[in-house]
């Protein structure tokens, strides 16, 4: 009878041997999907408008991004334009595009797209100024960056 009493009760410990494998799997997933943050925002992060008829931007290496938004200092009003890590004027946009073009080979230039990431509260005047500058230097492909969604009412 004592034989039976000796049986230990309680669950056996869960084996953690496969834990590294699981973690590695997650690790590889994030390593593959990750894109390093390239620019630090000098202006307030723009709240993008919502749109339903969006197209994905192909070939990320050929996209140059222009940010438009409010200054971090709330005392400064008006829209600020940021490229790379600095705030510029609309008239300096061409030199930014030329610098971007210089980094790519000649036959890639015609596929280059300018993505405008502007805050939904920004004024159209600023955007049209940028567009005019881009037209001047024949950078004709642009994309108004938006988040995909159907709630367009939230834009205005």
């Amino acid at each position, binding site marked *: 009878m004592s034989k039976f009493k000796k049986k230990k009760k309680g669950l056996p410990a869960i084996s953690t041997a496969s834990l590294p494998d699981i973690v590695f799997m997650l690790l590889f997933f994030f390593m593959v999907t990750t894109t390093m943050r390239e620019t630090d925002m000098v202006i307030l992060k723009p709240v993008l408008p919502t749109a*339903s008829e*969006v*197209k994905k931007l192909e070939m990320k290496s050929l996209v140059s991004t222009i940010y438009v938004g409010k200054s971090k200092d709330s005392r400064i009003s008006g829209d600020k334009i940021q490229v790379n890590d600095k705030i510029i004027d609309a008239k300096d946009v061409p030199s930014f595009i030329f610098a971007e073009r210089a980094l790519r080979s000649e036959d890639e230039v015609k596929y280059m797209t300018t993505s405008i990431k502007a805050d939904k509260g920004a*004024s159209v005047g600023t*955007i049209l100024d940028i567009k005019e500058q881009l037209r001047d230097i024949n950078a004709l492909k642009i994309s108004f960056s938006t988040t*995909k969604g159907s709630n367009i009412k939230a*834009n205005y």
Partner: protein
Amino acid sequence: MARRENSEINAGSMADIAFLLLIFFLVTTTMDVDSGISRKLPEKTDETPQVIIKEKNVLDIVVNRKNQLLIENEFVQVTDIKRLAMNFVDNGGGESTAIDGKPAAPCDYCNGAKDPASSDHPTKAIISLQSDRGTSYGMYVSIQNEIEGAYNELRNKLALKKYKRSYKDLLDDYKNSGLESLKVKIDFLKDSYPQIISEPEPIK
């Protein structure tokens, strides 16, 4: 005789190292896909060719600094743009222009009201978007989105009628396969309903 034993490497800390890396990538990762409404700006030319456009072939959209909309002098909401733009483009009340040896012909794929006071042909219909410098960008994008939506729906209708496939399917298939026959179809749809959007100088 000292026997050297091959002791196994302790792999217990492997998980910790992996966790550390994992947390690093978790923090630095940004998963945003850049998507947006793409537009092609008109080229700048020195001499502006004088083109005579009939008033009825232009759909005037005006938006002021209070984000209020006026289409053909009527006060409307953003949600109305798509319907109005579709009615306007798809009207087909007249004939197309004769280009590349093709004679002028009435629109044989339009489903519009054929109203003689509205646009003649989808290839002639121009949407003009006049904005104010003070209009908010969100409003501007919404209008662009609605116009884009109108054209997409018209192309989609034609695609379903002609090819029994949706326009989006055709685009997706072309992106995946790159078949020339699909490109011909897509170009045909785009040429049937070309996006002609004019943006005059903003109101100061």
